[in-house]
């Protein structure tokens, strides 16, 4: 039910967002949502307004999986979503308040806010991708987040949970839910799951299987991602040719297809709708800069960097490694030492970003030929002079690079 208070809150938020856009402070999503929530603390609930929603959360792949799921559900009609990466309650409120028509929606949610958002929007589905170390200066421990999810997903009114059975932390968090769809979406990073989240004992692994002496073990999946094939619960394999790279994204596509199936979208239709996506808010964007091909990869934490390193094509010789350590990145870049940068040996790297000195030291010990250039645009120019470049950047450094390459595209547009 929409109250007068909410109507006022939404109008004020919308005005603030417009002002923010006019004054070029930003796209206004966050400030608008904050103002709406300040006036009506239940604004998220009101903005959701009984709509039919799916939530997507996890350490890595939220934005890409959200975008896959939006494509799949759009085969049924319009879908509201929080594009732009604003995945805190303020951003969700703004997205829902702005686009009131669609009945269906897909929201990506920052991991610790999952309980609050479930309570406010009563989603039909919650999709859990993975959990691994990230921003430890803020969240301290990974298992704590898994516990927060677990508490939120327990109970009779809980939504259907679509969960990656290859991540023991996700399984532990999901397994208390009354209704679960398990998806074998894969997990390359195992370093946060040597210890059983349930009993604290050693988790043993054999191939893709894993188990703990307390009884927690890998559930039998009904959906599976293997190579470039997604197998649905009927046992039918679907070859997917995604427009975005990486085995991890085949897993994300499987999770999105499994979620879309709750809305009655067939696996074939869902996966077909995802193949046209080539870039997601700058991620995987292929463009050119200083006369060379450039691709942007976002990686925020050791698990993400480990995946991203597998996406660098063998023939690509120039790599830019850009790292900041602002609040949104995590203030402590010690995690650079959890990333197997040794895999870049034989290529030429340029270290840049606000923590380029940490990167340079890491690359020296990894035996990677490199130079350090403070300015991100200058770093990319130096790399692009020598040939095609893969840019790997963490969160805020990535935002900088989106602007750097957009600036180049704009200039080309004007000149030509």
């Amino acid at each position: 039910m929409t109250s007068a208070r909410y109507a006022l809150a939404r109008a004020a938020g919308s005005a603030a967002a417009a002002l923010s856009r006019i004054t070029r402070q930003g796209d206004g999503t966050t400030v608008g949502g904050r103002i709406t929530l300040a006036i009506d603390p239940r604004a998220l609930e009101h903005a959701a307004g009984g709509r039919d929603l799916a939530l997507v959360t996890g350490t890595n792949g939220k934005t890409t999986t959200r975008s896959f799921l939006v494509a799949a559900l759009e085969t049924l009609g319009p879908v509201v979503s929080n594009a732009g990466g604003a995945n805190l309650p303020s951003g969700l409120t703004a997205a829902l308040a702005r686009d009131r028509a669609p009945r269906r929606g897909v929201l990506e949610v920052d991991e610790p806010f999952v309980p609050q958002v479930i309570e406010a929007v009563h989603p039909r589905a919650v999709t859990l991708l993975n959990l691994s170390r990230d921003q430890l200066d803020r969240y301290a421990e990974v298992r704590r987040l898994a516990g927060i999810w677990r508490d939120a997903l327990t109970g009779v009114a809980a939504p259907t949970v679509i969960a990656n059975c290859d991540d023991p932390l996700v399984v532990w968090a999901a397994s208390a839910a009354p209704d679960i769809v398990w998806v074998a979406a894969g997990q390359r990073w195992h370093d946060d799951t040597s210890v059983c989240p349930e009993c604290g004992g050693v988790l043993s692994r054999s191939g893709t299987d894993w188990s703990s002496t307390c009884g927690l073990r890998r559930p039998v999946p009904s959906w599976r991602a293997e190579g470039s094939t997604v197998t649905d619960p009927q046992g039918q394999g679907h070859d997917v040719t995604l427009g975005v790279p990486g085995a991890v994204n085949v897993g994300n596509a499987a999770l999105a297809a499994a979620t879309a199936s709750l809305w009655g979208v067939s696996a074939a239709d869902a996966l077909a709708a995802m193949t046209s996506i080539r870039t997601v808010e700058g991620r995987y964007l292929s463009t050119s800069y200083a006369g060379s091909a450039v691709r942007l990869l976002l990686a925020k934490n050791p698990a993400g960097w480990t995946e991203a390193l597998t996406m660098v094509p063998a023939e690509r010789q120039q790599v830019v490694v850009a790292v900041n350590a602002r609040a949104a990145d995590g203030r402590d870049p010690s995690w650079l030492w959890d990333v197997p940068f040794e895999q870049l040996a034989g290529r030429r790297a340029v270290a840049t970003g606000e923590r380029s000195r940490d990167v340079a030291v890491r690359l020296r010990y990894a035996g990677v030929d490199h130079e350090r250039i403070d300015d991100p645009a200058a770093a990319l120019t130096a790399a692009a002079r020598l040939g095609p470049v893969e840019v790997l950047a963490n969160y805020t450094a990535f935002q900088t690079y989106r602007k750097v390459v957009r600036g180049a595209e704009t200039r080309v547009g004007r000149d030509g």
Partner: protein
Amino acid sequence: MADPVRIALVFPAVLGTYGDSGNAVVLTERLRWRGIAAEAVPVEIDQPLPQQADIYVLGGGEDSAQALAVSKLADGSLRRAADRGAPMLAVCAGFQILGETWLDGHGDVSPGLGLIDCRTDRLEGPRAVGELLVDATREGVGVLTGYENHGGRTVLGPAARPLGVVRSGVGNGAATVDGAVQGSVVATYLHGPALARNPALADHLLTQVVGSLTPVDDREAAELREERLRAARSAGRGMRRRQWRPPARDA
């Protein structure tokens, strides 16, 4: 050719949450740069601790991981290595479990491995998170820079001496010092990893194994140190430490 220097990385998957496995990389590579054969030996949680490693390295981890590590090391394997004088570096949770007692995730006092005369309980107030600057001039390794992230407070007993005096940040949270030195064991709350940010401390450990060392090119580490020392000093002038914020807040 001589046997390679073996650097045992103790349970990296449980005691490596904060990048501390990098300490083993630093030790290994600094020997190789000098033409000395070296290998890092990661020891997984279900494997026995090698008895003949030359250096042992332990890092930080979560509470449940600490308990598991203690239960595995309670077989006396690490103590035997310390008794024969093998150099050890223990960071954060690794430091805490080498003490007499530490607090587990439920707030209960648990027995540690007893290699360091210290006891760990909880810091009063918020978790210590931020740049940490420690003057370890007395230990001959100068100023140490790193990043701390812990809720523990560690009080040293008479048999342990501090690694250094805290110039900025929290460290042990008692007596304005950080870490501990006892026999061949060096302990600290510094992440970064500690040895990547402080090559002098790395060489201090290596010297105990291979004797005097030739200089290596540390210009990039020097640049990093200069930047972090500046950052720690300016942070120290403002807030003494960044406060840990509970996750359930719109950031």
